[in-house]
C-alpha cells in the first residue's frame, strides 16, 4: 500500500472562542484562527503559501482570508463539506505539497453555526425550495442531520440490543472532559439519567444526545516533516489518512443495507494500512460526536471493539479520561462546541505534544497533574498515537492517525 507515513506533520493549531453569538464575521474569525495557528507553529505569514477551507456556503473563502494576513498564496482551494472534511483536507494538503504546488498549508473552518447558519430544518432554511436530493426526502419531512441518522441508530438498537443508557455514556464522558476545558461551551458534568431524561428530538435522540450549534473558527497547519522539525512545537506526524470514504450508493445507502454499517468499514483498511498499526496501538481517539451514537458507531466500525458491541464499549469507562483509550478529551461537539470536526484534530495534536490547554498551571510547558477531577487536568499521560474518526453521514467518513 502506498503511504506517506511520517513524511508530513501538523505544526500549528489555533481557534477562536466557542460561542453562541460571536458578533463577528466568519472572515474575521478565520483570520484570528489562522493567525493563532501560524504563531503557534512559530512561523510567519511569509512561511504559509497554501490555504484550504471547507464550507457549505456559510463561510469566507481562503483567498479573502489570506490577504487579511498578508499571505500570498501559491495554492488555495475551498471545498464543499462539513464533518469528515478536516482529515481529508490534511491528506489533500500533503498531496499539494508532495506535488510541489506549495510548501506549507493552513486549513481552516469558520462558521457562525448558531447565530447565522443553523443546520437542519430550523430557521430560514426551512423555507428553502425543494431541489436535488430533496425530491426524495422533503415530502417525507427528512430535513435535518439528526433525522437522517436516526434510522441507522434505531436499526442498530434493533439488531444488537444497544440501549439509550449505554450510548448516553458518550455524553457523560465528553461532559467530564469538558469540565477540564476552559474553552468548552458546556462545562457541567451530566449523568446517564440527565441524558435519557432530556426531551425527545428525534427518536432515539434526546436533546443531550445532540451536539451544540456553535460560532467558531479553527485552523491547523500542515507541512513537510523536514520543515516541521524546525517549527517551535514538538512535531506531530501523520501516519495515515483516509477520506472522504463512501459506502456504496451514498445518497440512497439505506436501499442497499445494512444501514448499521458506516463508512469506517471501508476507511479502516486504508488508514491502518498506511500507518502500519492497529486499533490496539491507539492511545487517544477523536470519534466525531455530532450525536452520541456517531461516536459509538465509528469506534466499533474501526475495530476498537467487535461490530455490534459499541454500546458495551462506550459504557465501560474505556473512553473516559483515566480509562484505557479516552475519546474527545476536549469535550467534543457534544460539550466543547461544534466545528465540523477540526477541534477534535486540534485536541489530539495538543495531546501528542503534551500541552493540552487544561486548568493545570504548567500546561503550556507540558506540566500536568493527571488529576481528572472537575476543573483540573485533561492531559493523557504519555499519549503517543492518536486517531480521528471523522463523520459526515452514515455513508461518508474520514480518518487520520497521528503520532508524536
Amino acid at each position: 500500500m502506498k503511504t506517506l507515513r511520517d513524511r508530513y506533520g501538523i505544526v500549528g493549531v489555533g481557534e477562536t472562542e466557542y460561542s453562541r453569538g460571536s458578533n463577528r464575521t466568519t472572515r474575521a474569525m478565520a483570520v484570528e484562527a489562522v493567525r493563532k495557528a501560524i504563531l503557534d507553529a512559530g512561523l510567519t505569514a511569509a512561511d504559509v503559501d497554501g490555504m484550504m477551507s471547507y464550507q457549505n456556503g456559510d463561510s469566507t473563502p481562503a483567498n479573502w482570508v489570506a490577504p487579511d494576513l498578508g499571505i500570498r498564496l501559491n495554492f488555495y482551494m475551498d471545498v464543499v463539506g462539513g464533518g469528515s472534511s478536516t482529515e481529508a483536507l490534511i491528506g489533500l494538503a500533503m498531496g499539494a505539497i508532495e506535488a510541489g504546488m506549495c510548501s506549507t498549508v493552513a486549513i481552516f473552518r469558520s462558521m457562525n453555526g448558531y447565530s447565522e447558519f443553523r443546520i437542519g430544518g430550523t430557521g430560514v432554511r426551512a423555507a428553502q425550495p425543494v431541489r436535488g436530493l430533496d425530491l426524495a426526502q422533503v415530502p417525507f419531512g427528512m430535513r435535518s442531520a439528526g433525522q437522517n441518522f436516526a434510522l441507522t441508530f434505531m436499526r442498530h438498537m434493533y439488531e444488537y440490543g444497544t440501549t439509550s443508557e449505554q450510548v448516553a455514556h458518550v455524553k457523560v464522558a465528553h461532559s467530564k472532559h469538558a469540565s477540564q476545558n476552559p474553552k468548552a461551551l458546556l462545562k457541567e458534568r451530566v449523568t446517564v439519567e440527565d441524558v435519557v431524561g432530556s426531551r425527545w428530538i428525534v427518536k432515539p435522540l434526546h436533546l443531550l444526545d445532540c451536539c451544540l450549534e456553535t460560532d467558531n473558527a479553527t485552523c491547523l497547519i500542515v507541512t513537510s516533516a523536514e520543515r516541521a522539525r524546525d517549527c517551535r512545537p514538538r512535531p506531530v506526524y501523520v501516519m495515515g489518512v483516509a477520506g472522504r470514504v463512501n459506502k456504496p450508493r451514498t445518497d440512497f445507502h439505506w436501499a442497499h443495507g445494512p444501514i448499521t454499517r458506516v463508512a469506517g468499514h471501508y476507511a479502516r483498511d486504508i488508514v491502518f494500512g498506511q500507518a502500519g498499526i492497529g486499533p490496539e496501538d491507539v492511545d487517544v481517539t477523536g470519534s466525531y460526536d455530532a450525536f452520541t451514537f456517531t461516536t459509538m458507531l465509528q469506534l466499533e466500525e474501526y475495530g476498537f471493539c467487535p461490530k455490534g458491541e459499541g454500546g458495551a464499549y462506550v459504557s465501560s469507562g474505556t473512553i473516559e479520561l483515566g480509562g484505557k483509550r479516552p475519546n474527545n478529551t476536549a469535550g467534543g461537539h457534544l460539550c466543547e462546541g461544534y466545528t465540523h470536526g477540526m477541534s477534535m484534530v486540534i485536541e489530539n495534536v495538543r495531546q501528542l505534544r503534551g500541552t493540552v490547554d487544561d486548568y493545570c498551571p504548567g500546561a503550556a510547558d507540558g506540566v500536568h497533574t493527571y488529576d481528572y477531577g472537575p476543573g483540573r487536568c485533561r492531559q493523557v499521560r504519555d499519549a503517543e498515537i492518536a486517531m480521528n474518526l471523522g463523520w459526515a453521514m452514515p455513508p461518508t467518513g474520514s480518518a487520520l492517525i497521528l503520532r508524536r
Partner: protein
Amino acid sequence: MSVREERPIPAPPVNPETRPFWDAAAAGRLLLKRCAACTQPHHYPRVICPFCGSDRTEWTEATGRGTVYSYSVFRRAPIPYAIAYVTLAEGVTMMTNIVDCDVDAIRIGQPVRVVFKPTEGGPPVPMFTPA
C-alpha cells in the same frame, strides 16, 4: 400518544424522468423502475440502472406491501411524524412515512401497505400504514 392530525406535505416537483411515477401515484398505483438487462428493481426512479449502467429501465407496478426496515419519530415538530425506510416485497427499500397509526406503536419488521397522501398542490406521495 395517538397522532391523527395530518402534517402538511410539501409538493414533490415533477420532471420528465419521474412523471410516470407521479401520474401513477395520482391513480393510486406505486411504480418502481426495473432494469431489463440485469432484472434488478430500484427506487428512486432513474433512466440509467444504478446497478449495471444499462439504459433499458422499465416501469413496473409494485404490490404496495412491505415491512419496516427502520423508522424514527420526529418530535421537534408541531405535529410529530414517523419517517421510515420500508422494504417492499419486490426487494426495494424506500424512504417514506408511516401514517394513520399510533407512532409509538411502530416496530421494525412490522408489515405495512401503501397509501397515498395528498400534498400541497402536487401529486400525492406514497406512504405506508400498518397492514
